[in-house]
């Protein structure tokens, strides 16, 4: 019961912090909603409001050309009172979503899949944090708090992804596929997590029951479930909107073709502002392939730790997605403490963390210089986003290195603790 009390304290504290911030600074949510670091064109709460306005007046929400999010959010949000007049219910709702995410994290951590799986058991598994600590780390992360107050709809994708992981680690592969289908329906890119997630489910299945299901059949069945869930959600959406083509081109087409080059913390917008128009399609392909190519390599290389592959892929997405925001980074940061046992093996933590802090502090300042003060230009902000991405990349590469090192030490017990050089 002591643990439960701790958990209740953390969750209650997180909820209280969010509501306190809302009460103390009533203008904070609107400020955060307008920040490019928090709201991207595909997750912005303002755009959701626009779509909601059109939807409640029986106009296609995509006619405005502003709303690009999944249509199922609309009937859901139309149940909530107008956030302009009553901000509290929306804030409470978002805070609860955060708590739900934290709960999923606790489940993942408690399953212990991060430290020992079917093929592999980490050497330093005694160095770890318990689920509540990880949940606290997630809930009190300023990025998470800002995302929550900024009411970015990215948190629903986060929920889908975290629940998919949680279900997979507890052996509930059907729910995992459904949750991943939900996340992919909201914003395409989680579909790239499918293969490692199926592997994770398979490993868990093998661990649980002694019978080994045929991997090909297993993957096919899960893929079918995943596809069915997406088809089902799209079907409901089509019923809601009426025109399937408009729906797809306004949501997935928008995410794939990146027509809105509003600045964000990612790498795409500046590049596509500068590129010659005739090469735009080609480089769209290159960027998407670049994003997708990591999936295969990481899955093969770290076959023994599928949950780590998933975590690293989330890190890759936070860097190379077309419309990344700090909510993606907060998701990656939420999963990193599961690998507390890798921290002693990491080499550049100081550098990575200072780069991230530097970008976090200077990013808003440079954005202000560029947009409001007019004394800077786009390069200022882009340089900061580069630093941000650099910090994340270093962190990512470092954790992958640490995981590989851990595997290597596992395979070569006689070399444990000795100096090793990367070849």
């Amino acid at each position: 019961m002591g643990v439960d009390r701790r958990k209740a304290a953390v969750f209650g504290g997180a909820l209280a912090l969010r509501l306190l911030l809302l009460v103390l600074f009533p203008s904070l949510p609107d400020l955060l909603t307008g920040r490019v670091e928090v709201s991207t064109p595909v997750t912005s709460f303002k755009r959701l409001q626009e779509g909601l306005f059109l939807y409640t007046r029986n106009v296609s929400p995509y006619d405005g050309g502003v709303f690009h999010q999944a249509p199922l959010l609309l009937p859901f949000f139309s149940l909530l009172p107008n956030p302009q007049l009553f901000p509290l219910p929306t804030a409470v709702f978002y805070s609860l979503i955060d708590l739900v995410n934290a709960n999923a994290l606790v489940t993942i951590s408690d399953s212990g899949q991060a430290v020992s799986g079917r093929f592999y058991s980490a050497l330093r598994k005694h160095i770890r944090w318990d689920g509540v600590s990880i949940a606290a780390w997630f809930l009190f992360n300023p990025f998470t708090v800002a995302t929550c107050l900024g009411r970015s709809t990215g948190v629903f994708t986060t929920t889908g992804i975290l629940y998919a992981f949680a279900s997979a680690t507890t052996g509930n592969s059907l729910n995992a596929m459904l949750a991943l289908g939900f996340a992919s329906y909201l914003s395409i890119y989680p579909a790239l997590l499918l293969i490692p997630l199926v592997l994770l489910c398979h490993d868990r299945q093998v661990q649980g029951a002694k019978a080994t299901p045929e991997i090909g059949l297993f993957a096919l069945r899960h893929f079918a479930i995943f596809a069915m869930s997406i088809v089902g959600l799209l079907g409901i959406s089509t019923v809601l909107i009426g025109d399937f083509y408009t729906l797809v081109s306004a949501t997935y087409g928008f995410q794939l073709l990146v027509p809105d080059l509003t600045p964000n913390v990612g790498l795409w917008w500046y590049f596509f502002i500068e590129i010659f128009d005739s090469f735009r399609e080609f480089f769209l392909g290159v960027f998407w392939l670049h994003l997708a190519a990591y999936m295969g390599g990481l899955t093969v290389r770290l076959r023994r730790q599928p949950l780590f592959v998933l975590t690293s892929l989330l890190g890759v997405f936070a860097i190379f997605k077309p419309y990344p925001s700090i909510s993606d980074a907060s998701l990656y940061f939420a999963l990193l403490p599961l690998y507390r046992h890798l921290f002693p093996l990491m080499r550049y933590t100081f550098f990575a963390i200072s780069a991230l802090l530097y970008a976090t502090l200077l990013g808003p300042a440079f954005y202000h210089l560029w947009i409001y003060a007019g004394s800077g230009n786009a390069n200022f902000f882009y340089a900061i986003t580069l630093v941000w991405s650099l910090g994340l990349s270093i962190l990512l590469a470092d954790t992958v290195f640490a995981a590989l090192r851990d595997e290597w030490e596992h395979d070569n017990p006689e070399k444990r603790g000795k100096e090793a050089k990367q070849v």
Partner: protein
Amino acid sequence: MAIRDIVSNPSLLPVLGLSAETRDQCMKLLASIDPTADLAADPQDRVLAASKEQKQLFALLARLRGQNRDAILRVRETKQSTAEARQEIDRLHLQLQNLYYEQRHLTGEIAACESYDHKYLSLPLTPLDEFLALHPEHQQSDDHELMIARINHEHGEREKLEQARQELLKRKQALIAENNKRKEDLASLDQDLERFIDHALVMTAKNDDQTSPQTASDTMTDPAPRLPPPEKPEAVRTRFKVIAAFWAVIIFLGFPIWWQTTSIYRASLPIPDMIDWADGKTCRPVFPLEIRFETPSLPDAEAQHLLRTTQHTLDDLNEFSAHHLRLKLSSDVPAHPNDVADTALTVRLLPQDDLTSPRSHLHSDTTQLDVFYPPSQIPPPSASNSPLSSFVASSLQSLFTEEKAIIAQVLSDNNVPGASPNSANNQAPSAMLNSLSPDLAESIARRLRRSLKYAETYHLAFSLFTPGSSPSSWDIQAAVHDYISPLLEAFSPISNFTVDTQVQLYATFSPTAPAPEYDDANSAWTLKKDDLSAFINAAEWPLSPSIGSGPTINFILYVPTPSQSPLVVKDSLATSWVIPQWGGVFLLNPTPVDANQPAHLTSDALAPAFMTFSHQLLTLLGAPSTPAPLPLRLQTLTRLRAASLLLSASSTMGSLARLTESLPSIPIPATVATSVSTTLEHLSSACAHLRHGQFQAALASARVAETEAERSFFEKSMVGQMYFPDEHKVAVYLPLLGPIGVPLIVGLLKEVKKLVAGWRERRS
């Protein structure tokens, strides 16, 4: 004796004695001559004694003088010797001083030498005690010898050490060489080992024996303890899989995307045909005008003969082969119904008895020319010429002079060769132009300047402007219907028209325009001819420059205030004028002048204005001024437009062909190819129609050709694509793909190398 004390020199003593003797003698003399002393003595004696005394005195004085001279000489001598002695003393004194200086310098030098810190005092020698211990025989030797001995000893020691160093260096070189050799050996050993491990692995895989790789790694750790442990075969396989995964994405997704997104679609265009059209090689516009003769009162044969002679005369008169008249009897039936040419003119030959010479009459509303002739002038069958035929020929010729000139002008502007090289009367349009009278040429040029460029659609804007509040309405619909619509209908094969109207009250002149002046002679307000261009208040009058795509032709009806009417143009007293390529203006002065202005302009009131507008419209559209009948002018305009459209579409084709040839990297969409082929098709049909004299059809085809040509030339995706040289693509691709590509390619190469090595291994 004071003087004796002072003078002690012996040489002077005789002088002193002598001088004392001389004084005594003087005394004696004085005494002898003293009258008081010895009065007793004989004066004679006294005189004798005195003279004797005097003589003695003189002798003494002489001696004294001699002595004095001697003394002076001696003094001089003494002075000289004194000076010499003094010089000697000075010299010696100087010498002495020099010696003093020398002495002091030497003293200083000695001091410096004594205090000099010599190197040998601080030589890094073996300490004295040690040296003495080593060489006791030097115990007694003095410092100098001791030092020499020590230095020699040191020198010997150092040479020995240097030798030792050289030897060590040699040994070091030898060791390095040895080391290198060993390294090479080790490297080769590495390869051997790898081969051995591979074999061992194969064997382990076969025998499921774990020990051999272990021993392999053990043997390897001995010679090179720093080397990493060997990679396991599954690690190698994993790496291969990772690299394969990346390359699979690149090959199966990357390359298709690259191909799809960067290939430029270039539809093939008939470039040579297009250039031929532009150069006028494909089509030489000709204008055979068919003129039909109606000869109701003549027998067929005679009519034929008249026709032939007239044709001959016409051909002789014609200087411009591209434009010629073909005479035909109205009873002739063409061989092919398709070849029926438009009849440009019908000539009716009517006999009239009371005439002496032929007379012609042109119908004003049809294309008919009545020629009345005295019956006697029917040419006899034998005659090759007759007054009637030459009259007909010349009247026909004069009818079409202006049209011919305009066409020649248009063709020469577009550099079209006037005739084919084989043609007998080969004449360029420029030659035709040169033969024109300057007046005619000038008027043609002015008309071409005035008229608007051809467009598919013209917008007519009729505007009523008045500076006051009335008239506020006009019966525009009826006026347009009565005066403009028929004209537009007639023009409909050439262009489309839209009509807009507006009424503007309180429309004032622009402030910069000069105000009308009152002219007493004509009792009217006058505008200067030069100020007409400023009449339009472009800043305030709402005259939009264009409605939609085509050009706008403005017609302005200006009703002056009663206080300023009648308003006319100075000198000419005209009330209307044409603004070239823009429109026309009409000043509608109310009648009678003093009456109140009507609030509504009736159709009748508008009649003169719209009559003028219709004429202005004809001028603006480029219709020739002669011949007078409207149908003929319209026909001329049809031919003109057909020719100019044909030429402009052809030159557009040429430009497009040159553009696509000079820019090999611009895309050519399929729509452009379709448009081009449509254009060429219609161009050739227009040319064929022209050849057969079917000008309406030719115009229709030329219009289609022009529209399609413009569309293909201004195709958006072609215009948007700028010139983009290939070397720029390096700058586009490299910055991103280079860093991504290098590790991937290096990884691929390594794997391929390994595969090839393994394959060779298995072969051998």
